[in-house]
Protein backbone atom coordinates (compact mmCIF):
# COMPACT_ATOMS: atom_id res chain seq x y z
CA UNK A 1 0.00 0.00 0.00
CA UNK A 2 2.71 2.44 1.04
CA UNK A 3 6.43 2.06 0.53
CA UNK A 4 9.10 4.53 1.55
CA UNK A 5 12.78 4.20 0.77
CA UNK A 6 15.75 6.44 1.47
CA UNK A 7 13.52 9.40 2.22
CA UNK A 8 15.26 12.68 3.01
CA UNK A 9 13.21 15.78 3.80
CA UNK A 10 14.75 19.19 4.38
CA UNK A 11 13.62 22.75 4.95
CA UNK A 12 15.32 25.89 3.71
CA UNK A 13 18.39 26.30 1.58
CA UNK A 14 22.04 25.98 2.58
CA UNK A 15 23.52 27.34 4.82
CA UNK A 16 20.26 27.36 6.80
CA UNK A 17 19.11 24.01 5.53
CA UNK A 18 17.59 21.82 8.22
CA UNK A 19 17.43 18.11 7.55
CA UNK A 20 14.19 17.02 9.17
CA UNK A 21 14.20 13.42 7.94
CA UNK A 22 17.28 11.43 7.03
CA UNK A 23 17.27 8.18 5.07
CA UNK A 24 13.94 6.91 6.35
CA UNK A 25 12.44 3.72 5.01
CA UNK A 26 9.51 1.50 5.89
CA UNK A 27 6.53 -0.07 4.20
CA UNK A 28 2.93 -0.53 5.16
CA UNK A 29 0.84 -3.31 3.70
CA UNK A 30 -2.83 -2.85 2.89
CA UNK A 31 -5.08 -3.13 5.91
CA UNK A 32 -2.24 -2.67 8.33
CA UNK A 33 -1.93 -0.01 11.01
CA UNK A 34 1.59 1.34 11.23
CA UNK A 35 2.91 3.74 13.86
CA UNK A 36 5.67 6.33 13.91
CA UNK A 37 6.83 7.27 17.40
CA UNK A 38 9.27 9.92 18.48
CA UNK A 39 9.71 13.07 20.48
CA UNK A 40 9.02 16.52 19.05
CA UNK A 41 11.44 17.38 16.28
CA UNK A 42 12.14 13.77 15.43
CA UNK A 43 10.68 14.23 11.96
CA UNK A 44 7.70 11.91 12.31
CA UNK A 45 5.05 14.44 11.24
CA UNK A 46 7.30 15.65 8.43
CA UNK A 47 7.14 12.21 6.84
CA UNK A 48 3.33 12.40 6.80
CA UNK A 49 3.44 15.86 5.26
CA UNK A 50 5.86 14.72 2.59
CA UNK A 51 3.57 11.82 1.67
CA UNK A 52 0.55 14.14 1.58
CA UNK A 53 2.33 16.60 -0.68
CA UNK A 54 2.38 19.42 1.85
CA UNK A 55 6.18 19.51 1.78
CA UNK A 56 7.84 19.52 -1.62
CA UNK A 57 11.51 19.42 -0.69
CA UNK A 58 12.29 15.74 -0.40
CA UNK A 59 14.24 13.07 -2.20
CA UNK A 60 14.08 9.31 -2.17
CA UNK A 61 11.13 7.14 -3.03
CA UNK A 62 7.53 7.31 -1.87
CA UNK A 63 5.18 4.81 -3.44
CA UNK A 64 1.46 4.66 -2.82
CA UNK A 65 -0.30 1.69 -4.40
CA UNK A 66 2.66 1.16 -6.68
CA UNK A 67 2.43 4.75 -7.94
CA UNK A 68 5.60 6.69 -7.40
CA UNK A 69 5.08 10.23 -6.07
CA UNK A 70 7.03 13.33 -6.98
CA UNK A 71 7.50 16.75 -5.36
CA UNK A 72 4.33 18.20 -3.93
CA UNK A 73 2.07 17.59 -6.94
CA UNK A 74 -0.57 14.97 -6.43
CA UNK A 75 -3.32 13.94 -8.79
CA UNK A 76 -6.99 13.48 -8.06
CA UNK A 77 -6.66 9.72 -7.63
CA UNK A 78 -4.13 10.29 -4.87
CA UNK A 79 -6.52 12.54 -2.94
CA UNK A 80 -9.26 9.96 -3.33
CA UNK A 81 -7.16 7.20 -1.84
CA UNK A 82 -5.08 9.08 0.76
CA UNK A 83 -6.43 11.48 3.38
CA UNK A 84 -5.07 13.02 6.54
CA UNK A 85 -6.34 13.87 10.04
CA UNK A 86 -4.49 16.64 11.80
CA UNK A 87 -3.33 17.02 15.37
CA UNK A 88 -5.14 20.11 16.53
CA UNK A 89 -8.90 19.96 16.00
CA UNK A 90 -9.06 23.66 16.84
CA UNK A 91 -6.84 24.54 13.88
CA UNK A 92 -7.97 22.03 11.30
CA UNK A 93 -11.51 23.32 10.79
CA UNK A 94 -12.20 26.62 9.04
CA UNK A 95 -13.67 28.92 11.70
CA UNK A 96 -16.32 30.34 9.37
CA UNK A 97 -17.47 27.10 7.76
CA UNK A 98 -20.25 25.04 9.31
CA UNK A 99 -20.00 21.27 9.52
CA UNK A 100 -22.36 21.10 6.57
CA UNK A 101 -20.14 23.39 4.50
CA UNK A 102 -16.99 21.45 5.36
CA UNK A 103 -18.47 18.10 4.42
CA UNK A 104 -20.29 19.21 1.31
CA UNK A 105 -17.15 20.87 -0.01
CA UNK A 106 -15.14 17.70 0.61
CA UNK A 107 -17.79 15.57 -1.11
CA UNK A 108 -18.01 17.95 -4.04
CA UNK A 109 -14.24 18.02 -4.50
CA UNK A 110 -14.09 14.24 -4.35
CA UNK A 111 -16.63 14.10 -7.14
CA UNK A 112 -19.41 12.50 -5.12
CA UNK A 113 -23.08 12.68 -6.05
CA UNK A 114 -26.09 12.81 -3.71
CA UNK A 115 -24.30 15.17 -1.33
CA UNK A 116 -27.39 15.90 0.76
CA UNK A 117 -27.88 12.19 1.35
CA UNK A 118 -24.25 11.44 2.11
CA UNK A 119 -23.69 14.08 4.78
CA UNK A 120 -26.01 12.50 7.36
CA UNK A 121 -24.46 9.11 6.64
CA UNK A 122 -20.96 10.51 7.16
CA UNK A 123 -22.06 12.09 10.43
CA UNK A 124 -23.54 8.78 11.55
CA UNK A 125 -20.30 7.05 10.60
CA UNK A 126 -18.29 9.17 13.00
CA UNK A 127 -20.94 9.00 15.70
CA UNK A 128 -21.99 12.64 15.58
CA UNK A 129 -25.68 12.54 14.77
CA UNK A 130 -27.57 14.85 12.47
CA UNK A 131 -28.14 17.67 14.95
CA UNK A 132 -24.52 18.68 14.45
CA UNK A 133 -24.87 19.26 10.75
CA UNK A 134 -25.35 23.00 10.80
CA UNK A 135 -23.12 23.92 13.70
CA UNK A 136 -20.03 26.05 13.45
CA UNK A 137 -16.70 24.87 14.91
CA UNK A 138 -16.97 27.19 17.93
CA UNK A 139 -20.16 25.37 18.92
CA UNK A 140 -18.32 22.04 19.09
CA UNK A 141 -16.03 20.47 21.68
CA UNK A 142 -12.55 19.27 20.80
CA UNK A 143 -13.66 15.67 20.40
CA UNK A 144 -16.61 16.65 18.22
CA UNK A 145 -14.33 18.73 16.01
CA UNK A 146 -11.97 15.82 15.60
CA UNK A 147 -14.95 13.67 14.57
CA UNK A 148 -15.84 16.25 11.91
CA UNK A 149 -12.23 16.20 10.71
CA UNK A 150 -12.38 12.41 10.46
CA UNK A 151 -15.68 12.61 8.57
CA UNK A 152 -14.08 15.07 6.15
CA UNK A 153 -11.19 12.67 5.60
CA UNK A 154 -13.63 9.82 4.97
CA UNK A 155 -15.71 11.78 2.46
CA UNK A 156 -13.91 10.45 -0.59
CA UNK A 157 -13.79 6.88 0.77
CA UNK A 158 -9.99 6.74 1.01
CA UNK A 159 -8.02 3.59 1.68
CA UNK A 160 -5.02 5.08 3.48
CA UNK A 161 -5.45 7.49 6.38
CA UNK A 162 -2.52 9.54 7.64
CA UNK A 163 -3.17 10.28 11.31
CA UNK A 164 -1.03 13.05 12.77
CA UNK A 165 -1.36 12.80 16.57
CA UNK A 166 -5.15 12.69 16.26
CA UNK A 167 -5.79 12.55 20.01
CA UNK A 168 -2.92 14.41 21.65
CA UNK A 169 -4.98 17.59 22.06
CA UNK A 170 -7.90 15.77 23.67
CA UNK A 171 -8.84 14.66 27.17
CA UNK A 172 -8.20 11.01 28.00
CA UNK A 173 -11.88 10.08 28.03
CA UNK A 174 -12.39 11.72 24.64
CA UNK A 175 -9.17 10.13 23.41
CA UNK A 176 -10.67 6.73 24.21
CA UNK A 177 -13.78 7.58 22.16
CA UNK A 178 -11.77 8.76 19.16
CA UNK A 179 -9.41 5.79 19.29
CA UNK A 180 -12.41 3.45 19.42
CA UNK A 181 -13.95 5.27 16.48
CA UNK A 182 -10.74 4.89 14.48
CA UNK A 183 -10.58 1.19 15.37
CA UNK A 184 -14.19 0.68 14.26
CA UNK A 185 -13.75 2.62 11.03
CA UNK A 186 -10.70 0.62 10.11
CA UNK A 187 -12.57 -2.63 10.60
CA UNK A 188 -15.66 -1.36 8.77
CA UNK A 189 -14.01 0.22 5.74
CA UNK A 190 -10.83 -1.87 5.58
CA UNK A 191 -8.63 1.19 6.00
CA UNK A 192 -4.87 1.31 6.26
CA UNK A 193 -3.48 3.64 8.93
CA UNK A 194 -0.19 5.43 9.20
CA UNK A 195 -0.32 7.00 12.64
CA UNK A 196 2.12 9.43 14.18
CA UNK A 197 2.27 9.98 17.92
CA UNK A 198 4.62 10.91 20.72
CA UNK A 199 2.67 8.56 22.96
CA UNK A 200 4.00 5.02 22.85
CA UNK A 201 0.98 3.72 24.71
CA UNK A 202 -1.44 5.07 22.11
CA UNK A 203 0.66 3.61 19.30
CA UNK A 204 0.83 0.33 21.19
CA UNK A 205 -2.95 0.31 21.39
CA UNK A 206 -3.65 1.25 17.78
CA UNK A 207 -0.87 -0.22 15.64
CA UNK A 208 0.43 -3.57 14.47
CA UNK A 209 3.97 -2.42 13.78
CA UNK A 210 5.89 0.75 14.49
CA UNK A 211 9.08 2.66 13.83
CA UNK A 212 10.84 4.65 16.51
CA UNK A 213 12.36 7.90 15.31
CA UNK A 214 15.03 10.13 16.78
CA UNK A 215 16.64 13.24 15.25
CA UNK A 216 15.14 12.52 11.82
CA UNK A 217 16.30 8.93 11.61
CA UNK A 218 14.40 5.73 12.10
CA UNK A 219 16.13 4.07 15.03
CA UNK A 220 14.24 0.83 15.01
CA UNK A 221 11.23 -0.87 13.47
CA UNK A 222 9.44 -3.44 15.57
CA UNK A 223 6.10 -5.14 16.01
CA UNK A 224 3.78 -4.25 18.81
CA UNK A 225 4.34 -7.49 20.72
CA UNK A 226 7.99 -6.56 21.11
CA UNK A 227 6.95 -3.12 22.31
CA UNK A 228 4.69 -4.64 24.94
CA UNK A 229 7.49 -6.85 26.18
CA UNK A 230 9.69 -3.77 26.37
CA UNK A 231 12.08 -5.60 24.06
CA UNK A 232 13.63 -2.68 22.20
CA UNK A 233 16.89 -3.43 20.39
CA UNK A 234 18.19 0.09 20.83
CA UNK A 235 18.95 2.08 23.99
CA UNK A 236 16.78 4.95 22.82
CA UNK A 237 13.76 2.72 22.39
CA UNK A 238 14.17 1.29 25.85
CA UNK A 239 14.61 4.79 27.22
CA UNK A 240 11.36 5.89 25.58
CA UNK A 241 9.49 2.88 26.87
CA UNK A 242 10.83 3.51 30.36
CA UNK A 243 9.97 7.20 30.31
CA UNK A 244 6.46 6.63 29.00
CA UNK A 245 5.57 4.28 31.83
CA UNK A 246 5.42 7.37 34.03
CA UNK A 247 7.44 9.21 36.63
CA UNK A 248 9.59 7.36 39.07
CA UNK A 249 11.10 9.24 41.98
CA UNK A 250 14.82 8.72 41.85
Amino acid at each position, binding site marked *: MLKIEHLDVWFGLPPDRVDAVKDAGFSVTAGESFGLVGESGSGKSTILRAIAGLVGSWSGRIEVDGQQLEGHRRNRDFYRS*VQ*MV*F*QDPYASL*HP*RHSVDAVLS*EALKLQGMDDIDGRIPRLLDDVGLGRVFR*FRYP*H*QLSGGQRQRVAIARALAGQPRLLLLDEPTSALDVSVQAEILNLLTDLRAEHGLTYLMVSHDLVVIGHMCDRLSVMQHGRIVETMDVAALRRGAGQQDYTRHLIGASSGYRRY
Partner: protein
Amino acid sequence: MSQTRRDWLLSDAPQTRRQARLGAIYQGWLTFRANKLAMFGLIILVILIFTAIFAPWIAPQNPFSQNLGGRLAPPSAEHLLGTDALGRDILSRLIHGARITLFIVGTVALIAPIIGLFIGTVAGFAGGWLDQVLMRITDIFLAFPKLILALAFVAALGASIGNAVLALALTAWPPYARLARAETLTIRNADYIAAARLQGAGPMRLLIRHIWPLCISSLIVRVALDMAGIILSAAGLGFLGLGAQPPMPEWGAMISDGRTYILDFWWVAAMPGLAIFIVSLSFNLLGDGLRDVLDPKGGKE
Protein backbone atom coordinates in the same frame (compact mmCIF):
# COMPACT_ATOMS: atom_id res chain seq x y z
CA MET B 1 -43.49 34.55 20.75
CA SER B 2 -40.49 36.86 20.77
CA GLN B 3 -38.92 34.72 23.48
CA THR B 4 -39.21 31.58 21.38
CA ARG B 5 -37.80 33.36 18.33
CA ARG B 6 -34.85 34.42 20.44
CA ASP B 7 -34.33 30.83 21.55
CA TRP B 8 -34.58 29.66 17.98
CA LEU B 9 -31.90 32.13 16.95
CA LEU B 10 -29.58 31.37 19.86
CA SER B 11 -30.03 27.62 19.52
CA ASP B 12 -26.88 25.54 19.86
CA ALA B 13 -28.28 22.98 17.46
CA PRO B 14 -29.60 24.72 14.38
CA GLN B 15 -31.75 22.54 12.12
CA THR B 16 -31.15 24.23 8.80
CA ARG B 17 -28.50 26.21 6.99
CA ARG B 18 -30.69 29.30 7.27
CA GLN B 19 -31.15 29.02 11.02
CA ALA B 20 -27.41 28.57 11.53
CA ARG B 21 -26.63 31.66 9.47
CA LEU B 22 -29.30 33.83 11.06
CA GLY B 23 -28.22 32.62 14.50
CA ALA B 24 -24.64 33.68 13.83
CA ILE B 25 -25.84 37.10 12.68
CA TYR B 26 -28.06 37.50 15.74
CA GLN B 27 -25.16 36.63 18.06
CA GLY B 28 -23.12 39.33 16.36
CA TRP B 29 -25.95 41.83 16.71
CA LEU B 30 -26.21 41.12 20.44
CA THR B 31 -22.50 41.73 20.87
CA PHE B 32 -22.75 44.92 18.85
CA ARG B 33 -25.77 46.13 20.77
CA ALA B 34 -23.93 45.77 24.06
CA ASN B 35 -21.54 48.51 22.91
CA LYS B 36 -23.48 51.73 23.58
CA LEU B 37 -21.12 54.05 21.73
CA ALA B 38 -21.23 51.86 18.65
CA MET B 39 -25.04 51.93 18.80
CA PHE B 40 -24.85 55.72 18.97
CA GLY B 41 -22.67 55.71 15.85
CA LEU B 42 -25.08 53.38 14.07
CA ILE B 43 -28.07 55.55 14.93
CA ILE B 44 -26.36 58.68 13.57
CA LEU B 45 -25.53 56.86 10.37
CA VAL B 46 -29.06 55.56 9.96
CA ILE B 47 -30.29 59.13 10.39
CA LEU B 48 -27.76 60.29 7.82
CA ILE B 49 -28.92 57.68 5.32
CA PHE B 50 -32.57 58.65 5.85
CA THR B 51 -31.67 62.30 5.42
CA ALA B 52 -29.91 61.54 2.19
CA ILE B 53 -32.78 59.47 0.80
CA PHE B 54 -35.53 61.92 1.71
CA ALA B 55 -33.47 65.12 1.31
CA PRO B 56 -35.97 66.92 -0.99
CA TRP B 57 -38.79 66.36 1.51
CA ILE B 58 -36.82 67.09 4.67
CA ALA B 59 -34.96 70.17 3.52
CA PRO B 60 -36.94 73.27 4.47
CA GLN B 61 -35.81 75.20 1.38
CA ASN B 62 -34.30 74.73 -2.03
CA PRO B 63 -30.54 74.39 -1.52
CA PHE B 64 -29.82 76.30 -4.71
CA SER B 65 -32.23 79.23 -4.38
CA GLN B 66 -30.27 82.39 -3.76
CA ASN B 67 -31.44 85.40 -1.82
CA LEU B 68 -28.78 88.05 -2.01
CA GLY B 69 -30.81 90.30 0.29
CA GLY B 70 -30.60 87.76 3.12
CA ARG B 71 -26.97 86.73 2.66
CA LEU B 72 -24.82 85.71 5.62
CA ALA B 73 -27.79 85.79 7.99
CA PRO B 74 -27.07 84.27 11.42
CA PRO B 75 -29.05 81.24 12.63
CA SER B 76 -32.69 82.20 13.18
CA ALA B 77 -36.15 80.68 13.15
CA GLU B 78 -36.37 81.10 9.40
CA HIS B 79 -32.86 79.78 8.68
CA LEU B 80 -32.03 77.39 11.51
CA LEU B 81 -28.32 77.29 10.66
CA GLY B 82 -28.12 80.66 8.96
CA THR B 83 -27.39 81.45 5.30
CA ASP B 84 -24.23 81.55 3.25
CA ALA B 85 -22.63 84.23 1.06
CA LEU B 86 -25.31 83.84 -1.63
CA GLY B 87 -28.19 83.77 0.87
CA ARG B 88 -28.77 80.00 0.52
CA ASP B 89 -30.13 78.11 3.54
CA ILE B 90 -27.20 76.23 5.10
CA LEU B 91 -29.39 73.55 6.71
CA SER B 92 -30.96 72.66 3.37
CA ARG B 93 -27.57 72.55 1.74
CA LEU B 94 -26.22 70.27 4.48
CA ILE B 95 -29.18 67.93 4.04
CA HIS B 96 -28.67 67.70 0.32
CA GLY B 97 -24.92 67.44 0.87
CA ALA B 98 -25.51 64.25 2.85
CA ARG B 99 -26.25 62.57 -0.48
CA ILE B 100 -22.92 63.58 -1.92
CA THR B 101 -21.07 62.58 1.22
CA LEU B 102 -22.72 59.16 1.23
CA PHE B 103 -22.05 58.71 -2.46
CA ILE B 104 -18.36 59.44 -1.98
CA VAL B 105 -17.98 57.34 1.11
CA GLY B 106 -20.01 54.46 -0.28
CA THR B 107 -18.16 54.28 -3.57
CA VAL B 108 -14.71 54.58 -2.06
CA ALA B 109 -15.61 52.04 0.60
CA LEU B 110 -16.68 49.64 -2.12
CA ILE B 111 -13.78 50.05 -4.53
CA ALA B 112 -10.70 50.47 -2.33
CA PRO B 113 -11.07 47.41 -0.07
CA ILE B 114 -11.95 45.17 -3.00
CA ILE B 115 -8.81 46.20 -4.88
CA GLY B 116 -6.83 45.83 -1.66
CA LEU B 117 -8.32 42.46 -0.82
CA PHE B 118 -7.62 41.10 -4.26
CA ILE B 119 -4.04 42.32 -4.51
CA GLY B 120 -3.18 41.51 -0.91
CA THR B 121 -4.54 37.98 -0.82
CA VAL B 122 -3.13 37.06 -4.22
CA ALA B 123 0.29 38.38 -3.20
CA GLY B 124 0.22 36.64 0.17
CA PHE B 125 -1.11 33.37 -1.18
CA ALA B 126 1.03 33.10 -4.30
CA GLY B 127 4.27 34.27 -2.71
CA GLY B 128 7.47 34.38 -4.76
CA TRP B 129 7.94 36.92 -7.53
CA LEU B 130 4.25 37.77 -7.82
CA ASP B 131 4.24 38.77 -4.16
CA GLN B 132 7.35 40.89 -4.73
CA VAL B 133 5.92 42.71 -7.75
CA LEU B 134 2.51 43.40 -6.18
CA MET B 135 3.96 44.55 -2.90
CA ARG B 136 6.47 46.88 -4.54
CA ILE B 137 3.61 48.49 -6.47
CA THR B 138 1.78 48.86 -3.17
CA ASP B 139 4.87 50.44 -1.64
CA ILE B 140 5.07 52.96 -4.47
CA PHE B 141 1.50 54.04 -3.80
CA LEU B 142 2.15 54.15 -0.07
CA ALA B 143 5.23 56.32 -0.55
CA PHE B 144 3.13 59.34 -1.58
CA PRO B 145 0.91 61.23 0.83
CA LYS B 146 -2.64 60.20 0.04
CA LEU B 147 -4.08 63.64 -0.62
CA ILE B 148 -1.16 64.70 -2.85
CA LEU B 149 -1.58 61.60 -4.97
CA ALA B 150 -5.32 62.18 -5.19
CA LEU B 151 -4.63 65.78 -6.21
CA ALA B 152 -2.37 64.56 -8.99
CA PHE B 153 -5.04 62.13 -10.22
CA VAL B 154 -7.78 64.74 -10.20
CA ALA B 155 -5.53 67.28 -11.87
CA ALA B 156 -4.85 64.77 -14.62
CA LEU B 157 -8.43 63.55 -15.01
CA GLY B 158 -10.20 66.87 -14.54
CA ALA B 159 -12.03 68.27 -11.56
CA SER B 160 -15.35 66.57 -10.89
CA ILE B 161 -16.98 64.62 -8.11
CA GLY B 162 -16.67 61.35 -10.01
CA ASN B 163 -12.97 61.78 -10.60
CA ALA B 164 -12.48 62.78 -6.98
CA VAL B 165 -14.06 59.52 -5.86
CA LEU B 166 -11.95 57.55 -8.30
CA ALA B 167 -8.80 59.30 -7.14
CA LEU B 168 -9.62 58.65 -3.50
CA ALA B 169 -10.34 54.98 -4.16
CA LEU B 170 -7.12 54.56 -6.12
CA THR B 171 -5.09 56.06 -3.32
CA ALA B 172 -6.88 54.31 -0.44
CA TRP B 173 -6.31 50.66 -1.37
CA PRO B 174 -2.64 50.07 -0.41
CA PRO B 175 -3.20 49.81 3.36
CA TYR B 176 -5.95 47.25 2.73
CA ALA B 177 -3.64 45.26 0.50
CA ARG B 178 -0.99 45.20 3.24
CA LEU B 179 -3.55 44.14 5.82
CA ALA B 180 -5.01 41.42 3.61
CA ARG B 181 -1.56 40.11 2.76
CA ALA B 182 -0.54 39.91 6.41
CA GLU B 183 -3.73 38.00 7.25
CA THR B 184 -3.26 35.69 4.28
CA LEU B 185 0.28 34.84 5.36
CA THR B 186 -0.97 33.59 8.72
CA ILE B 187 -3.97 31.76 7.25
CA ARG B 188 -2.00 30.19 4.41
CA ASN B 189 -0.21 27.70 6.63
CA ALA B 190 -3.22 26.77 8.76
CA ASP B 191 -4.20 23.12 8.99
CA TYR B 192 -7.63 23.74 7.51
CA ILE B 193 -6.03 25.08 4.34
CA ALA B 194 -3.79 22.00 4.21
CA ALA B 195 -6.88 19.83 4.71
CA ALA B 196 -8.69 21.56 1.85
CA ARG B 197 -5.62 21.10 -0.36
CA LEU B 198 -5.73 17.41 0.45
CA GLN B 199 -9.29 17.29 -0.78
CA GLY B 200 -7.93 18.53 -4.08
CA ALA B 201 -9.03 22.16 -3.77
CA GLY B 202 -7.32 24.40 -6.32
CA PRO B 203 -5.76 27.77 -5.57
CA MET B 204 -8.80 29.75 -6.77
CA ARG B 205 -11.14 27.87 -4.47
CA LEU B 206 -8.76 28.21 -1.52
CA LEU B 207 -8.48 31.93 -2.15
CA ILE B 208 -12.16 32.68 -2.60
CA ARG B 209 -13.85 30.23 -0.27
CA HIS B 210 -11.28 29.85 2.48
CA ILE B 211 -9.08 32.92 2.66
CA TRP B 212 -11.40 35.75 1.65
CA PRO B 213 -14.07 35.10 4.28
CA LEU B 214 -11.44 35.41 6.99
CA CYS B 215 -9.84 38.56 5.57
CA ILE B 216 -13.08 40.37 4.88
CA SER B 217 -14.08 40.87 8.49
CA SER B 218 -10.91 42.67 9.45
CA LEU B 219 -11.13 44.71 6.24
CA ILE B 220 -14.68 45.79 7.09
CA VAL B 221 -13.53 46.99 10.49
CA ARG B 222 -10.62 48.83 8.94
CA VAL B 223 -12.87 50.45 6.32
CA ALA B 224 -15.32 51.65 8.97
CA LEU B 225 -12.46 53.17 10.91
CA ASP B 226 -11.00 54.74 7.76
CA MET B 227 -14.33 56.26 6.69
CA ALA B 228 -13.65 59.37 8.73
CA GLY B 229 -10.38 59.85 6.86
CA ILE B 230 -12.10 59.34 3.52
CA ILE B 231 -14.76 61.93 4.33
CA LEU B 232 -12.05 64.35 5.35
CA SER B 233 -10.04 63.68 2.19
CA ALA B 234 -13.14 64.19 0.08
CA ALA B 235 -13.84 67.39 1.96
CA GLY B 236 -10.21 68.38 1.46
CA LEU B 237 -10.51 67.91 -2.31
CA GLY B 238 -13.76 69.86 -2.25
CA PHE B 239 -12.09 72.57 -0.20
CA LEU B 240 -9.35 72.88 -2.81
CA GLY B 241 -11.99 73.11 -5.51
CA LEU B 242 -11.04 69.78 -7.11
CA GLY B 243 -14.03 67.76 -6.00
CA ALA B 244 -17.64 68.76 -6.25
CA GLN B 245 -18.13 71.85 -8.38
CA PRO B 246 -20.34 74.80 -7.44
CA PRO B 247 -23.20 75.04 -6.86
CA MET B 248 -23.23 71.45 -5.54
CA PRO B 249 -23.66 71.50 -1.77
CA GLU B 250 -20.64 69.34 -0.92
CA TRP B 251 -19.60 69.81 2.71
CA GLY B 252 -15.90 70.41 2.06
CA ALA B 253 -16.65 72.94 -0.66
CA MET B 254 -19.07 74.66 1.71
CA ILE B 255 -16.30 75.10 4.29
CA SER B 256 -14.11 76.46 1.54
CA ASP B 257 -16.80 79.00 0.65
CA GLY B 258 -17.13 80.07 4.26
CA ARG B 259 -13.41 80.50 4.75
CA THR B 260 -13.48 84.12 3.57
CA TYR B 261 -15.98 85.08 6.27
CA ILE B 262 -14.76 82.79 9.02
CA LEU B 263 -14.10 85.53 11.57
CA ASP B 264 -17.28 87.59 11.12
CA PHE B 265 -19.77 84.95 10.01
CA TRP B 266 -18.50 81.83 11.73
CA TRP B 267 -21.56 79.67 11.04
CA VAL B 268 -20.96 79.53 7.32
CA ALA B 269 -17.85 77.37 7.77
CA ALA B 270 -18.61 75.93 11.19
CA MET B 271 -21.92 74.23 10.33
CA PRO B 272 -20.59 71.97 7.55
CA GLY B 273 -17.49 71.42 9.69
CA LEU B 274 -19.70 70.21 12.50
CA ALA B 275 -21.56 67.89 10.11
CA ILE B 276 -18.28 66.36 8.93
CA PHE B 277 -17.15 65.99 12.52
CA ILE B 278 -20.31 64.19 13.65
CA VAL B 279 -20.40 61.80 10.71
CA SER B 280 -16.68 60.98 11.00
CA LEU B 281 -17.07 60.33 14.69
CA SER B 282 -20.03 58.05 14.19
CA PHE B 283 -18.14 55.99 11.61
CA ASN B 284 -15.30 55.63 14.08
CA LEU B 285 -17.63 54.45 16.83
CA LEU B 286 -19.31 52.05 14.43
CA GLY B 287 -15.92 50.64 13.45
CA ASP B 288 -15.05 50.05 17.09
CA GLY B 289 -18.30 48.15 17.61
CA LEU B 290 -17.79 46.10 14.45
CA ARG B 291 -14.37 45.13 15.66
CA ASP B 292 -15.95 43.57 18.76
CA VAL B 293 -18.26 41.55 16.54
CA LEU B 294 -16.04 40.60 13.65
CA ASP B 295 -12.51 40.36 14.95
CA PRO B 296 -11.86 36.64 15.21
CA LYS B 297 -9.13 37.32 17.77
CA GLY B 298 -11.68 38.98 20.06
CA GLY B 299 -12.38 35.53 21.44
CA LYS B 300 -15.58 33.55 21.45
CA GLU B 301 -15.11 32.23 24.97
